[in-house]
Each structure stands twice: as C-alpha cells, then as structure tokens.
C-alpha cells in the first residue's frame, strides 16, 4: 500500500479523497493555486504545495508542476479527483513515465474511452447499443457539420470529445442553433479540456440518464455496483442523483449491469469507472460514454452498497485484487444526492462567487455532507462552482426524500447564492416524489421557478433580527461615536438592554 498520495484537485472531492486516504493510513499532499491558500483541502492535507496562479491552466491543469510536487514530497501516487486532469490520458501517461501511480484507469483505456467518438465505434463493433450519431470529430466548417446534422436528424446534441460535466454541450434544433452552438461548444471545450473537438449525435427527447458504477482490478475482475439515476439536470449538468433508479426492474438492472461490465472489459479498463446510458421511454438503453474517474455522485452508490469507492480505487491502484464478486453485492435502502452549487437559480443558474459569511452544515442520522467549504472561506470565480454534496440514505425512497427535505431546510449558507432553495422544491415536486424523473424535468417543471416569498411571520422575524444586528441603533440612536460599537457581539443593543433590565 502507498505511504503518501498527492491529490491533484481542490474542493469537496479533494477533501473526500483525503479522508479515504487517512482511513487507509496514507499521508496526503494537497496542491493549491494562489486562489486556494485558504481552502479546505489545504487544511485537510498533511502537506501542501503551491502550484501556481489562480487560473486552472496555470495550476491544477499544469501537469509538470503537479508531477514535480509529487516528486518533491515523495508521493508515490496521484489521485486526480474529478475534472481537471482526471480524464487526461496524457497526464496518466506522464505519471506512468515518472514512476508515479495514477489512481485511475491505465492510459490506453483512458485514451479509448476519453475519445467519445472512437469509444462509440469500438462499442458499436462489440455489439453494445449506441445512440445514432456522427462517427468522427466534427470540423469547424459549418456546411459539413450541417449536412451531418441533417443526416442524423434534428434535434442533435453537440458534445465535447474530451468532455464531461455538461461543458461544451449544446442542443441544436436547426441550422442556426447548430452554428452558434458549435462555436460556443468548441470554445468551452477548449477552455475546459484544452481540446476543442466536438461531435454530434441524435438528441433523444426526455430520456432518463442511468449510469452504472463499475470496479475492475488489474487482473480483469470486473463487477458493477448497480445504477445511479442522474436524470435531474439543469444546463445538461446533473444536480440530483439517486439509487436505485425507479425505472429499472431486476431484469433490466441485471442486463444493463452486465452490459456495463462488458463495456469496461472491451475497453481494457481497470480501476473505478462509470458507464453512462440513456434510457428511453420504451426502456431501450443506449451506451453514452465511460466516465473514467470517480464521479461527483459516487456517494449514493457507497451508501446503498456499503462499498467505499475511494478505498477501492486506492487498493486497486496499489495492485490489490477485488475481495468481492458480483454476487456479494446488493442494494440496500435508497440514497439521494443533491449537489450544492454556488449559483443563482433565479438568474439561469449563473455561478455566484464571494465569501461564505456563515455556514451551518446539515446533520443527523442518514445524512452525509461531503463539504468543500467552511464559514469564512472564499468561493473563487476560477473553478467549478460546486461547494458540497448533500447525500442521504434511508430505508425507502419516500423516507430518503423526507430526510433530504429536512436536511436542505436546515442547511444554511450565507454570503453566496446557492441552489439549496431550488433543490427543496425539486425534491418536493409531486413528479419527483412519484419517480417521474427524466432529463426534461427541470425545463418542464421549473422554467418559471420563483423562490418562495416567506410568510409575513418570517419577514417580521427577519426585520427583528436585522434590527438586533443593526449597529446604527435605529433612526433615533446615537451616531457612529456610540460606545455600543465596541461590544464584540453583533447583538449590541440586546446586550445593553439586558444589562439595564437585570
């Protein structure tokens, strides 16, 4: 087993991976950009190495600086988290060259699955069902791509070849939208992955997004850990995930799980990975792509199967053999995850940055909070706006929903806008409660969403609290020279009155 691992990431996932390392007795090294000196992952690690300026291209995406940090600190392995270099086959290869273990699939498998076009071709050949679409990377020449789009039939989806996480994705319903979508998609792909290649595929209306978690050790033992349903998306990006999926029965689950394992075997894949499928209304499923990394939503699988995926990733990377077989695994209860983004649901989910002035984490039985922030931290503009993930487990889906609602209700982040209030209404929606979750759920039911106003009682409470916080002491109070300002609590006038009253 490794003695020391460098985590080439930031935020909640870096913290979560470090926790997993600590439990295996492995020391951790954080890397951080200039924007992240104060960040939680730096505090959580045993060692921390500065790797450059705030823009990711000059820090978290700078392979050589990260490799140097690993060498300098004597880290034997690198865990890439998700995003950044997690699915970068060049980086995986550079690690291999430098004799540092990359905690993820081998670079050849990553090359294959990372090239969405080639992987689809390979899978199609192997008899895996795929979505009709373009076979090659698209050129920036509009007339060629428009011809391709018409061959597939509008609507089409523009996707980044190197992509993931919704970045570079655009739906085009006609030639005009194709033109602007291609331009934006390629620019986003370039910015996010350093590779502007995109491709087209048939856009399946209102499908479910169902993915299977797979573990494969270095000896070819491959098991799946069942599905995650990730249909609730905004801007093509998941915000709510759950397992088990309401759309699968045991027969379909077994068939999809076997297909997922076969995909990984065809790809020569090792370590943890996810096989994404679209599931249409007629219960046909199509292979979408392999996510060659630990997924944001991995905790729901952990809660329902009891398997710690970070531990497994590290064990596999260290050459250990899987200690369980497919028949040892089962799903127990129900888990739901909500992603907590710094974003404003009232302004088209635009990212929100700034200082977290106050944080109260949700807690309680069955509640897990994978957190990347703390009260007083800065949310920089440079990176993915995910702040934390709230995951609940309960015996049944109904109870998990109730538990999630209660946890969201008691989750306080002040200073940056978040999607918490929005998520409450999503989870509480009758269609969600009924399990009718498709990828069009948010556009269909939440396009016109407004934050609840709050009752008159609560507004009066807010006024009361603001009055008690007020340093000005009201319209009739003393001026700025007033001594009450020196009182170290914000409840200055309260303190004064209390003292007078007793």
């Amino acid at each position, binding site marked *: 087993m490794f003695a020391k691992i460098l985590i080439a990431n930031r935020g909640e996932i870096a913290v979560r991976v470090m926790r997993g390392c600590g439990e295996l007795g492995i020391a951790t090294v954080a890397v951080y950009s200039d924007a992240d000196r104060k960040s939680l992952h730096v505090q959580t690690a045993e060692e921390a190495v500065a790797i450059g300026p705030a823009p*990711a291209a000059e820090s978290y995406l700078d392979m050589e600086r990260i490799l140097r940090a690993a060498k300098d600190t004597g880290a034997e392995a690198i865990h890439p988290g998700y995003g950044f270099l997690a699915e970068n086959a060049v980086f995986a290869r550079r690690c291999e060259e430098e004799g540092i273990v990359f905690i993820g699939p081998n670079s050849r498998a990553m090359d294959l699955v990372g090239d969405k076009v080639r992987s689809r071709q390979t899978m199609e050949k192997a008899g895996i069902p795929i979505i009709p679409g373009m076979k090659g990377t698209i050129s920036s020449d509009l007339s060629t791509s428009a011809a391709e789009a018409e061959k597939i039939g509008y609507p089409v989806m523009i996707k980044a070849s190197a992509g993931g996480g919704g970045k570079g994705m655009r739906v085009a319903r006609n030639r005009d939208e194709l033109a602007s979508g291609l331009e934006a998609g390629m620019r986003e792909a370039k910015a996010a992955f350093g590779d502007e290649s995109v491709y087209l595929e048939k856009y399946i209306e209102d499908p479910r997004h169902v993915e299977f978690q797979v573990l494969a050790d270095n000896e070819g033992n491959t098991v799946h850990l069942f599905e995650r349903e990730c249909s609730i998306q905004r801007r093509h990006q998941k915000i709510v995930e759950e397992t088990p999926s309401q759309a699968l029965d045991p027969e379909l689950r077994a068939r999809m799980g076997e297909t997922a394992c076969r995909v990984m075997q065809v790809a020569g894949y090792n370590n943890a990975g996810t096989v994404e499928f679209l599931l249409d209304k007629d219960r046909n499923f199509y292979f979408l792509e392999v996510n060659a990394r630990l997924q944001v939503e991995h905790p729901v699988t952990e809660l329902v199967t009891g398997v710690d995926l970070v531990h497994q990733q590290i064990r596999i990377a260290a050459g250990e053999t899987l200690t369980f077989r497919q028949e040892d695994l089962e799903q127990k209860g129900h888990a739901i995850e909500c992603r907590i983004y710094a974003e404003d649901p009232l302004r088209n989910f635009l990212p929100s940055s700034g200082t977290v002035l106050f944080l109260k984490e949700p807690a309680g039985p069955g509640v897990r909070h994978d957190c990347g922030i703390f009260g007083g931290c800065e949310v920089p503009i440079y990176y993915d706006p995910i702040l934390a993930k709230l995951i609940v487990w309960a015996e049944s889906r109904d109870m998990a929903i109730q538990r999630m609602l209660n946890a969201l209700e008691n989750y306080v982040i002040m200073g940056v806008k978040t999607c918490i209030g929005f998520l409450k209404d999503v989870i509480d929606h009758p269609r969600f409660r009924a399990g009718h979750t498709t990828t069009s759920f948010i556009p269909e039911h939440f396009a016109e969403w407004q934050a609840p106003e709050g009752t008159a009682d609560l507004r009066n409470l807010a006024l*009361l*609290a603001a009055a008690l916080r007020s340093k*000005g002491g009201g319209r009739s109070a003393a001026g700025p020279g007033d001594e009450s300002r020196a009182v170290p609590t914000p409840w200055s006038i309260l303190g004064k009155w209390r003292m007078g009253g007793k």
Partner: protein
Amino acid sequence: MDYQFQMSGNLHTIALEARGEGYLVTAGDTTFVAEVCPLSPNALSVLIDGRSYTVYTAGDGNRHLVFCEGQHFELIEPSEDSDRFLAGEGGGAGDELMIKAPMPGKIIKISVSENEEVRKNQTLVIVEAMKMENEIKSTIEGVVKRVSASPGDLVDTDTPIIELTKKE
C-alpha cells in the same frame, strides 16, 4: 426604537420596545412579543407565543442577511448612501436598457457594436465564470447606444457592459 430596512424592494419599519426577556415588536399592522436569546454572533433563538425559531444572520456593511425556517432574506439598512441605493434599485423600466454583468467573470465575446440594431433574444455578450459560458441576450428590440467593456475584461456583478436604446 424604530428601524427601517429595505427588503424585496420595499421599505419596512419595525419598532422594538424592551419587554421582559425580549421585545414588544411592531411591524406594519402586526404587534407581537418576541422572547429573544442570542446563541452566537450568527444566531438568535426567538420564542413567539410558544413557537420556537432559530434565526441565523450574517452581513457586511449595511446589508443584513437572515435565514429562518429555510428562507433567506436580505435587508438593506438605509445609510448616507441610501438615496443612491434606492435610486438604483427603484429604476424600473429604465434599467432594462443597461446590460450588466450577471456575475463576476470574464468577458469572452461582445457580439454587437455601437449603433447596431438588435432584436429580442439576440446574443449581446458572452461572459465566462467558473468555466461556464453565459450568453446574455437582449430582452428588447433596440439599438446599441454604448459598449463599455471589451473581450478579456474581468467584470464584477452589475458592471455595465452595453447600453441599449429601445426602438420606438
């Protein structure tokens, strides 16, 4: 003591009078007794007629943020700057003409130039933040009066970018 706060665009007045362990509160037409117990610099426990509320607060300058029972409130305390503030918020229809940055970020592309006519929903500018591109579209038919930013500029929330004039 009377206090005034701007909340959701309206000015509210609240009066507090010490009463036992708390206050007699008058807010608009409503009067109630609130027993108040500070828990920490960021939290208050309030009992009103047996109902228990935990109120979390934070803020900066004259801005008070309040969270209670799952709801967020933002209250602005009028100060010397308040006239400017009120003018800015109360602008109404005129505001539609000033295209501002929706969040802190970087301007990637400005798709229009001065004196150009724009139609409704036409993309005016693309701002990137946290690796996501956000297209800002025109909400009106009009003419570009002024472009006050350039691609590559870092902008803050509400930085003016483009000024439009409504088409007659």
